[in-house]
């Protein structure tokens, strides 16, 4: 490991934290503009620090060597018990650099936007405190040099997400959504924790660098011996990822999480927190590559999620829910990439997705803001003229996510598709890829379809607004549209950071993160050799899928007409099934929710009260209760019975003495 100690990482982590503490402690007494300024400036400063650190990292010699070049900073001891050592130690390599630039950069834009969006809310200081705290937690997640510290960030973002989803806590539904998110996340966290324990048991360390050394120095016998447990641990880690990154089976919390303020949805539930799972898979790619079974599971789950969420997104009517399902679907794409051993593609899509999905969420926020809180797209329409900036930027976002040629999404999505086509052998079952690729194309088609359905329904056609919404209709202020334009430009140009290799141009992005994903790359290259011919075909197929989705959307929704309704009427069952999200929520409520309640009641009433407390004899509570009752019977307060017992005891003792058995 080529690491250089630096002093830049602590400020990067602590600046947002300081902002959070300041706003949390005294924000209530400050004017709103000042609390907003504290929040924005602390993130802005963190962004500058992240840039400086990235520059320093870029200048390091040997960044191409196998052991990734990185900046490190040890802050303090944290947990140090025998073999379990986890310090407050930060590690900044290429992947971290990208993640922290996204977190602080997009975070800064969203903070700016929030200052406009939330300016009327009485809890503004609290809001900025939470938002800063979130950035701090997310940074600790990506900066962690060991899995325990990573887990701290992992749980930390979950906690702040809970606070922010339930930000308007007076509404019981929003609180329920927040609790649901936290609990679903906790299921994932448990799996992650167990995965970490397993790794700790196998490798004897929780230090990521140490794990990397361990994984790369394993002998064949060791790998064979550890195979099952290693697969189990990577599977557990992946389950952890499905919780945080909203994949099947734990995705159910994300749509509900839209109860939070819209900028929060943009930052946490689109751009950063939900990508933590991808980050973890990339960060630990040296482990996942050793377990082909896990990789195929990841790929399949990712693709299934992408398809299912895309289908659900197609029929939702809440603008934010559509975007939420879109996020789930795009995350599925990223997992698909990670699953086919294309972590660079996953990472690239993560970045571009952060830009255009944040843009789309902020745009939807702008629409909601303009319509005084209206979120149902059936009561929108024709907003293109009224909200010029919003609609233009929204269109750019839609083009990017649909993979319109030369937008950011075009490059990143094609790289994923190429990975699916190319890396089929990594999955261990070549036949799988034959299924995966067409389905992935279909998912790309779905993406374009539902996104442009949203665009056309909201911004094109005739206005279907309520009177109340009409009366306040206005374009958002500059502090909100500014970030939109910045993100729009990024969505357009970010793709050029990762030009595909076959064009003969330099892929800066891939080159930059190559040291981190070297184990995977090494394997893939060693199996397949240099990239080969079918690339243009792949690009063509991907582009065609996107364009045809857009075209179909235009046909169905762009010109008005009754076609969608007729389609829905033609297959009522199917439509209801998709509209109701495949009844997964109900299924969970019925199985886990009810089962938990029933079990709890049964334990409480039957086991605890009846078996342990009442049916004492022979039951599990024999010792406590029966003996308690026995003694209780003796100690019934009857003085004379006590005396009798005392005499019996005395007689017994005297008898023993008289017998000469015991000498007093």
């Amino acid at each position, binding site marked *: 490991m080529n690491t250089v100690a630096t002093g830049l990482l602590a400020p990067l982590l602590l600046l947002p934290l300081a902002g959070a503490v300041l706003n949390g402690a005294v924000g209530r007494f400050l004017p709103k503009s000042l609390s907003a300024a504290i929040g924005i400036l602390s993130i802005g400063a963190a962004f500058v620090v992240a840039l400086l650190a990235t520059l320093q990292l870029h200048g390091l010699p040997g960044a191409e060597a196998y052991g990734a070049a990185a900046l490190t900073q040890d802050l303090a001891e944290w947990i140090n018990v025998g073999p379990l050592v986890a310090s407050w130690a930060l590690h900044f390599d290429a992947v971290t650099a990208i993640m922290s630039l996204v977190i602080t950069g997009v975070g800064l834009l969203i903070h700016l936007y929030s200052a406009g969006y939330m300016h009327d809310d009485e809890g503004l200081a609290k809001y900025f405190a939470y938002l800063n705290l979130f950035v701090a937690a997310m940074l600790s997640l990506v900066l962690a040099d060991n899995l325990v510290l990573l887990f701290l960030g992992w749980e930390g973002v979950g906690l702040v997400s809970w606070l922010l989803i339930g930000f308007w806590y007076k509404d019981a539904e929003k609180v329920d959504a927040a609790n649901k998110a936290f609990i679903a996340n906790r299921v994932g966290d448990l799996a992650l924790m167990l995965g970490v324990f397993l790794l700790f048991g196998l490798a004897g360390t929780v230090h990521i660098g140490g794990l990397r050394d361990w994984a790369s120095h394993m002998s064949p016998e060791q790998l064979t011996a550890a195979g099952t447990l290693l697969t189990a641990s990577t599977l557990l880690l992946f389950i952890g990822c499905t919780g945080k990154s909203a994949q099947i089976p734990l995705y159910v919390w994300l749509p509900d999480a839209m109860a939070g303020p819209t900028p929060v949805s943009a930052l946490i539930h689109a751009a950063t927190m939900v990508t933590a799972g991808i980050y973890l898979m990339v960060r630990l790619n040296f482990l996942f590559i050793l377990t082909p079974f896990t990789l195929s599971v990841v790929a399949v789950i990712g693709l299934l999620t992408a398809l299912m969420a895309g289908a659900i997104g197609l029929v939702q009517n809440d603008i934010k829910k559509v975007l939420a399902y879109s996020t789930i679907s795009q995350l599925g794409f990223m997992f698909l990439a990670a699953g086919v051993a294309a972590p660079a593609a996953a990472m690239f899509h993560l970045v571009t997705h952060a830009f255009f999905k944040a843009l789309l969420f902020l745009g939807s926020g702008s629409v909601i803001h303009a319509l005084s809180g209206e979120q149902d797209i059936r009561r929108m329409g024709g907003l293109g003229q009224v909200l010029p900036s919003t609609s233009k930027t929204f269109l750019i976002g839609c083009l990017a996510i649909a993979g319109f040629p030369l937008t950011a999404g075009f490059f990143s999505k094609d790289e994923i598709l190429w990975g699916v086509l190319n890396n089929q052998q990594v999955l261990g079952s070549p036949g799988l890829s034959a299924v995966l690729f067409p389905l992935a194309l279909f998912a790309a088609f779905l993406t374009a379809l539902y996104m442009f359905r949203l665009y056309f329904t909201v911004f094109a056609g005739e206005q279907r607004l309520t009177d109340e919404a009409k009366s306040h209709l206005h374009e958002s202020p500059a502090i909100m549209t500014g970030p939109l334009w910045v993100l729009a430009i990024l969505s357009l140009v970010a793709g050029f950071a990762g030009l595909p290799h076959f064009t003969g141009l330099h892929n800066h992005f891939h080159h930059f993160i190559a040291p981190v994903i070297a184990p995977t790359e090494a394997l893939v290259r060693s199996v397949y050799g240099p990239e080969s011919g079918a690339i243009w075909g792949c690009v063509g197929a991907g582009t065609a899928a996107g364009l045809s989705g857009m075209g179909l959307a235009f046909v169905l929704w762009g010109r008005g007409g009754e076609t969608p309704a007729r389609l829905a009427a033609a297959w009522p069952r199917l439509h209801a099934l998709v509209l109701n999200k495949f009844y997964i929520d109900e299924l969970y409520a019925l199985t886990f929710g009810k089962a938990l309640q029933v079990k709890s009641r049964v334990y409480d009433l039957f086991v605890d009260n009846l078996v342990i407390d009442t049916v004492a004899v022979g039951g599990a509570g024999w010792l406590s209760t029966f003996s308690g009752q026995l003694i209780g019977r003796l100690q019934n307060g009857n003085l*004379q019975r006590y005396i*009798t017992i005392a*005499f*019996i005891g005395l*007689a017994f003792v*005297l008898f023993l003495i008289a017998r000469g058995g015991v000498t007093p």
Partner: protein
Amino acid sequence: MNVEQVLFYLFAVGAIAGCSGVVLSRNPINSAVSLVAAFFFLAGNYVLLHANFMAIVQILVYAGAIMVLFLFVLMLLNQRDEELGPRTFSIAPLLGIFAAAVVSVTIGAGFMSYRNATANFPGEVPLSFGTAEQIGRSLMTTHLLPFELVSLLLLVGIVSAVVVAKRRL
């Protein structure tokens, strides 16, 4: 049988009779009066044992002070006759009686076996034995600490009796 023996048996029978009266009579006042009688007989036995001071104290404190207190309380509370025998059948008192009997027999047997029947009293008793003077000297010298503790105990007893009786429950 010399006089001493006659007196011992007399006092012994009297004491046992008096105590039995306590246990057997239904009226608590009768019990109390029987107990006073038993105390007198016991005091007689003390005299036989050359514990003259203790005999006096027995009569003054026990028969005089304590039992008067008992009687006073009994009169004050106006206790009616108690029905003897168990209200509901219970094995416990029977067991208790049995145990008490065992205790008694064992204690007796134990004492009997103590020093194997060489337990004759020493014939010569010093004149000063059991007198107020000897007791007093002993109390002020060897047994000063117990004496002080007893006085403290009595003080606490007085105070708490006052407190308890004063407080309304």
